[in-house]
C-alpha cells in the first residue's frame, strides 16, 4: 500500500496531517480519511459488530459497512462516520470503534470462540435462565460488548440551519447522468436543484478513466459544474445527501457545511436541512458494486473492484502491492487494467464466467497476468490478506499469494429512495438486480440507477429525460452539446455463492451475518424476506444493506428453492444514510424547543418576582414569592388569604376567547352548548357547558351577549384551539346554511381577574365614571366602557367564589392596565396571585377544571346534570343518554376531607371502602384535584366516587401506595367555602 508517484485528483501542493488511533500520518487536500489511510498502508480500521473480527476498508463510497470511525473528539465527536466519505482536513482526529483495549489487540474478539452460540437469532434462544440474571448479569454484559461507536454524552455545541427550495427539477446525483440532465434543464430555463453527497462533481467519472469528448471524464464534469454554477436558475448543493422522499413531491436533504473544516466559524451552521418540493425528480444515484460471498471475504485486503479503481485513479493510493481480481462481470477487468496502469503487480484474474470476452484481455495477458475462467475464489486467507484459495474450472485448488483482492459481483442500481413511499422494486433478469417498478410521483431513474450502466447511456439518459421534462413544462430544450463516450459492455453472470468454502463467508458485513445464518433462518422457517431481515438482522445496520441485501436475498431464494424474483425484497426507509438528529431539530432545541407564548403582563410579572409554569405553550405566573417566604406553600397561602380578605389580581388572558356573530349566532350556540344560550339577555353572562358528540364533557367557559347578534365566548386555556375548530366544524360542515361567523380573539384581549371583597372599590377607583353598583353591574353581567381611548369590558364573573370581576382591554394596553389596577388598589393591599392560588380557590369552591374535564366524565358525573337542557337539541345529547353514561354507579363528584388534621390527599389516589383489600375489584373512584386550603386550615380534595352524592359523611380510604401511603377521609359535598354562593353575588 502506498501513494502513487503521480496521478490522482489530490492536490499535492496542499499536504495535510491527521491522526488515526493516536498515530499521526500525512495526507493531501482532496483525500478522504479512507484514501489517506490506504496511502499510509493502514489495513486494519475497525472490528466487526458481533464477532470483533479485524476489518479493513471494503469500498470507496457511502455504502461502506466496515470502516466506521469516531470522527473528532470532545463534544463534536461523531461515531459511526464512514471513513470513505469523510473529507480529510488538516488536524483531523479519528479513532476506531468497537474494540478494547486497542484495534490490534481486541480482547472482545474472544466472541469468535463462542461463534456457534452467537448465530442468527441467538438472543431469542439464550440468556433466558435464570430469569433474575437478565437484568443484573446478562444485559449489562451485552450492553458493554455490543454496539458500534459511542456518543460523547455532551450537549451538541453546533448550530443547525434549515431552508426550503422549490424547483421544476431536482437532480439527485451529479455523476454523468445527473450533470447531463441538469445542463439540459438549466439551459432551458427550468428551476433546477442538483445535489451530490461528494464535494467534487462527477460521480463515477472521478473513479474511472473513461473519456468524454476524448478528454478525461472529470474534466468534462468540472466544466459542466462551472456552467451550472453560473446559471441563476440552478441551485447547486454540494456535500448534500438527499435522504428521504415524502408525500407531495417533497424531498429531505442534508447539506454538510463545515464538517470538512478544521474549525467551525462561530455561529456558522454545521449542517442545513433542506425541504425540497420538486415537480420532477431524476434519480441519478448510480449503482453500488456487490461483493461476492466466499470464505474470509471480510478480511482486510478484500475490496470491491471499483473501490480499488477509485483509490488508484482518484486518490493515487494503491491498496496493495500484489493483487488478484475476482469478478463475475466486465467491470472487474477495468480494475485489472487500472492496476496495471498504476504499476501494481496483478497476479491473476479469476473470472467465474466460462468464456468471458473482454477487449482488455490482450493487454492484460501481455502484462503476464494469469487468467482463470470458470473459476472462483473459495477462501481468502490471513488475518490481513496474504493469499487466496482458488478452485478452477476442473475443481482443482490452487493458492495465489496476494495482499489485495479486488472483488466484482455485479452492480445494483441505487434505488433505495424510490421505495420510500412503499413501492417494492422488481427483478431484472438482464442485469441480475432490482430496478424501480413504481417510482414516487414525478420521479424517473436515469443511467446506472435505471440499470443502464454504460457511460454513453448515462449521458444520453440525462439529456433526453431533462428535455422531456422541459417540454412537459412548456419550455424547449436546446439540443445538447456533444457528449461522446464509449458505450462499454457491462455483461454480468451472477454468482450468488462460490460453493464449498472453509472459513466464514459474510453476507452483511456490518451486522456480521454469514451465509450459514441465512441458511439457518430459512431452515427454522423464517422464509419470508421480512422475517429473514429481522431474524438475522441482515440489512438492519447503518448501511441499510446496501452491499448485502441482494446477496442475502439470493441465498434465501436458493435455500427456499424459489427464483429470486419471487423471494421478494425489503423496502428501504428514510433516512437513506444516517442523519444527525441535531439537523432535524435545527432551531428548536433547549428553550426554543417549541415557541413560548407570553401574556400581556409578562414583563410586569417578572418585575414582581413571578415564578412561571407552562400551560400548553403559555408561560403563566404560578405565584409571586416575596422575600423571606419559606416555600411556595407559604406564598400561595398568602395569596389566597389576600384575595378572600381583600383584593387580588390574576392574569387570565390565556383563556380562549371567540367572537360569534351573525343572525344565526344564537341558534348555533344553542346547538353547541348543553344548556340554553339563546335566552341570554344582552349584557348578561352565562356559564356554558360543551359536550362532545359522544356525550362526554369537552370544555366549559362563559358566554356573554353583547347584542342581539354578537356573542363573546370563553374557553379553558388548553382547549382554546379545539373549541375554535369545533365551532368551525359546526358552522361549515354540520350547518352551513346558518348565517354565523366566528373568529378567535384570544390574543386581542388582555384580561385580568380582580377578585375579593374589595374588588368593587378598586375598580371604582380605576374607572370613576363607571357605575359599578350591584344594580348597575349585577353578578353574571357585562358592561363596556372606554379607558385611555380603547374599549374596556368588565365582566362580573367569579372563579374563586368571592366578589369578583374580569377586566379586559385590547392587549396593546394590557401592561398599562395591570399597572393602573395596582395603582388603583395601592391603599387596598392589592395582591398579585398566580395559577396556584387560583387553583386552590376553585377547589375550595368545587368548580370543575381540567382535572375533572378529563375526557372521561359526563355532566352528571360533575354534578352538572341539571344544566342539560330538555328543550332543545345540542351536540352530545343523544349519546349522553347511553346506559353506560347514565349508570347511577358511575363515579360522581364529591369533596374529601382527611380525618387526621395534618394529613394530605394527593390527586390520582384511588378510593376504597374502609377495610377493603387494595384490589381493582374494590376500586370505587379516584381523586381528581387536591390542595391545602388556608381558608380551612386543612387539606381538601375533589374526587369521583361511585354513588358519591349519597355517601356524604361516610369514611373511606384514599389509597396511595406509590407515594405517601393511605389516608382515611370523610366524604362531603364538593364545596368547602361559602356553599350558598352569596359572596360572589353581593
Amino acid at each position: 500500500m502506498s501513494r502513487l508517484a503521480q496521478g490522482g485528483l489530490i492536490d499535492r501542493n496542499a499536504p495535510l496531517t491527521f491522526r488515526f488511533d493516536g498515530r499521526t500520518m500525512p495526507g493531501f487536500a482532496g483525500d478522504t480519511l479512507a484514501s489517506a489511510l490506504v496511502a499510509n498502508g493502514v489495513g486494519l480500521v475497525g472490528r466487526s459488530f458481533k464477532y470483533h473480527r479485524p476489518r479493513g476498508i471494503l469500498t470507496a463510497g457511502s455504502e461502506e459497512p466496515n470502516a466506521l470511525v469516531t470522527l473528532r473528539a470532545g463534544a463534536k465527536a461523531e461515531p459511526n462516520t464512514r471513513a470513505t466519505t469523510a473529507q480529510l482536513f488538516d488536524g483531523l482526529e479519528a479513532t476506531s470503534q468497537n474494540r478494547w483495549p486497542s484495534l490490534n489487540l481486541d480482547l472482545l474478539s474472544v466472541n469468535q470462540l463462542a461463534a456457534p452460540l452467537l448465530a442468527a437469532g441467538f438472543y431469542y434462544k439464550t440468556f433466558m435462565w435464570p430469569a433474575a440474571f437478565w437484568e443484573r448479569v446478562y444485559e449489562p454484559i451485552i450492553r458493554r460488548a455490543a454496539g458500534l461507536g459511542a456518543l460523547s454524552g455532551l450537549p451538541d455545541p453546533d448550530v443547525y440551519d434549515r431552508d426550503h427550495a422549490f424547483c421544476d427539477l431536482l437532480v439527485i446525483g451529479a455523476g454523468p447522468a445527473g450533470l447531463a440532465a441538469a445542463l439540459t434543464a438549466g439551459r432551458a430555463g427550468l428551476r433546477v436543484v442538483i445535489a451530490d453527497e461528494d464535494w467534487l462533481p462527477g460521480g463515477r467519472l472521478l473513479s474511472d478513466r473513461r473519456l468524454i469528448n476524448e478528454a478525461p471524464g472529470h474534466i468534462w464534469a468540472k466544466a459542466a459544474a462551472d456552467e451550472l454554477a453560473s446559471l441563476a436558475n440552478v441551485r447547486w448543493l454540494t456535500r448534500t445527501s438527499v435522504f428521504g422522499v415524502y408525500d407531495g413531491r417533497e424531498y429531505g436533504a442534508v447539506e454538510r457545511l463545515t464538517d470538512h473544516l478544521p474549525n467551525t466559524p462561530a455561529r456558522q451552521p454545521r449542517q442545513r436541512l433542506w425541504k425540497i418540493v420538486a415537480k420532477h425528480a431524476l434519480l441519478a444515484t448510480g449503482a453500488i458494486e456487490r461483493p461476492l460471498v466466499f470464505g474470509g471475504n471480510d478480511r482486510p485486503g478484500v475490496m470491491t473492484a471499483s473501490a480499488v479503481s477509485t483509490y488508484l485513479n482518484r486518490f493515487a493510493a494503491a491498496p496493495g502491492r500484489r493483487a488478484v481480481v475476482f469478478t463475475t462481470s466486465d467491470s472487474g477487468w477495468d480494475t485489472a487494467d487500472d492496476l496495471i496502469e498504476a504499476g501494481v503487480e496483478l497476479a491473476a484474474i479469476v473470472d467465474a464466467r466460462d468464456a468471458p470476452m473482454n477487449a482488455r484481455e490482450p493487454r492484460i495477458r501481455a502484462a503476464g497476468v494469469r487468467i482463470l475462467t470458470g473459476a472462483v475464489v473459495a477462501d481468502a486467507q490471513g488475518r490481513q490478506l496474504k493469499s487466496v484459495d482458488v478452485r478452477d474450472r476442473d475443481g482443482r485448488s490452487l493458492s495465489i499469494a496476494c495482499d489485495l483482492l479486488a472483488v466484482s459481483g455485479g452492480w445494483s442500481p441505487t434505488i433505495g429512495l424510490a421505495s420510500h413511499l412503499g413501492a417494492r422494486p422488481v427483478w431484472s433478469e438482464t442485469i441480475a438486480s432490482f430496478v424501480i417498478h413504481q417510482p414516487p410521483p414525478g420521479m424517473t431513474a436515469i443511467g446506472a440507477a435505471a440499470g443502464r450502466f454504460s457511460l454513453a447511456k448515462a449521458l444520453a439518459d440525462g439529456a433526453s429525460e431533462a428535455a422531456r421534462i422541459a417540454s412537459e413544462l412548456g419550455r424547449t430544450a436546446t439540443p445538447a452539446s456533444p457528449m461522446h463516450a464509449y458505450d462499454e459492455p457491462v455483461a454480468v453472470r451472477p454468482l450468488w455463492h462460490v460453493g464449498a468454502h472453509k472459513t466464514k463467508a459474510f453476507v452483511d458485513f456490518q451486522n456480521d451475518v454469514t451465509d450459514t445464518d441465512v441458511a439457518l433462518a430459512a431452515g427454522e422457517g423464517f422464509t419470508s424476506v421480512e422475517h429473514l431481515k429481522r431474524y438475522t438482522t441482515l440489512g438492519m445496520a447503518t448501511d441499510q444493506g446496501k452491499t448485502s441485501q441482494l446477496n442475502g436475498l439470493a441465498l434465501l431464494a436458493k435455500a427456499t428453492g424459489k427464483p429470486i424474483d419471487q423471494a421478494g425484497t425489503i423496502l428501504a426507509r428514510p433516512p437513506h444514510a444516517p442523519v444527525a438528529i441535531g439537523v432535524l431539530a435545527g432551531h428548536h432545541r433547549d428553550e426554543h424547543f417549541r415557541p413560548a407564548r407570553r401574556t400581556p403582563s409578562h414583563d410586569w410579572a417578572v418585575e414582581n418576582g413571578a415564578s412561571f409554569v407552562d400551560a400548553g405553550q403559555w408561560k403563566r405566573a404560578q405565584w409571586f414569592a416575596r422575600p423571606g417566604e419559606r416555600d411556595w406553600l407559604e406564598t400561595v397561602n398568602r395569596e389566597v388569604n389576600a384575595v378572600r380578605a381583600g383584593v387580588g389580581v390574576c392574569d387570565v388572558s390565556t383563556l380562549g376567547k371567540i367572537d360569534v356573530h351573525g343572525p344565526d349566532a344564537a341558534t348555533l350556540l344553542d346547538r353547541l352548548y348543553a344548556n340554553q344560550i339563546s335566552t341570554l339577555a344582552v349584557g348578561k353572562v352565562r356559564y356554558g357547558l360543551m359536550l362532545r358528540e359522544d356525550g362526554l364533557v369537552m370544555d366549559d367557559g362563559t358566554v356573554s351577549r353583547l347584542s342581539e347578534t354578537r356573542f363573546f365566548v370563553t374557553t379553558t386555556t388548553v382547549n382554546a384551539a379545539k373549541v375554535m375548530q369545533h365551532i368551525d366544524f359546526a358552522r361549515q360542515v354540520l350547518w352551513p346554511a346558518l348565517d354565523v361567523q366566528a373568529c378567535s380573539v384570544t390574543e386581542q384581549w388582555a384580561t385580568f381577574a380582580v377578585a375579593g371583597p374589595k374588588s368593587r372599590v378598586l375598580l371604582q377607583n380605576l374607572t370613576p365614571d363607571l357605575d359599578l353598583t350591584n344594580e348597575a353591574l349585577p353578578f353574571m353581567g357585562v358592561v363596556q366602557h372606554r379607558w385611555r381611548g380603547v374599549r374596556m369590558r368588565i365582566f362580573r364573573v367569579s372563579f374563586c367564589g368571592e366578589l369578583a370581576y374580569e377586566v379586559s382591554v385590547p392587549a396593546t394596553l394590557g401592561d398599562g392596565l395591570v399597572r393602573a389596577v395596582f395603582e388603583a388598589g395601592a391603599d387596598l393591599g392589592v395582591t398579585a396571585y398566580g395559577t396556584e392560588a387560583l387553583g386552590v380557590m376553585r377547589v375550595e369552591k368545587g368548580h370543575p377544571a381540567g382535572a375533572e374535564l378529563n375526557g372521561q366524565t359526563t355532566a352528571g358525573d360533575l354534578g352538572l346534570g341539571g344544566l342539560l337542557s330538555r328543550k332543545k337539541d345540542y351536540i352530545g345529547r343523544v349519546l349522553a343518554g347511553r346506559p353506560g353514561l347514565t349508570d347511577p354507579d358511575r363515579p360522581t363528584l364529591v369533596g374529601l376531607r382527611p380525618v387526621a388534621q395534618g394529613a394530605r390527599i394527593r390527586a390520582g389516589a384511588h378510593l376504597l371502602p374502609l377495610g377493603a383489600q387494595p384490589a381493582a375489584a374494590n376500586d370505587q373512584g379516584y381523586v381528581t384535584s387536591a390542595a391545602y386550603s388556608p381558608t380551612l386550615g386543612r387539606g381538601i380534595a375533589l374526587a369521583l366516587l361511585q354513588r358519591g352524592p349519597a355517601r356524604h359523611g361516610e369514611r373511606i380510604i384514599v389509597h396511595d401506595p406509590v407515594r405517601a401511603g393511605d389516608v382515611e377521609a370523610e366524604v362531603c359535598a364538593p364545596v368547602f367555602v361559602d356553599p350558598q354562593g352569596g359572596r360572589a353575588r353581593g
Partner: protein
Amino acid sequence: MFDYVYLRDNLAGLMREHWYHAQGCRNWLVVTRDTRTHEIFDAALAKNAAASEPKL
C-alpha cells in the same frame, strides 16, 4: 346507534374524509384520498359540499 358510534369502514382505496386547515384559512375540507397511495383526488370546501353527503 351501535354501528354509528363504534363501527367504521376501513377502506383500501378512495376515501372521503374531513381535513381542517388549522394553520391556514381555518376551513374544513372534504378530501378524497386513496388510502393505499395517499394520492389526493379531490379537495373541496366542506361548506359547499351538498347537504346530502354522508358525514363522517
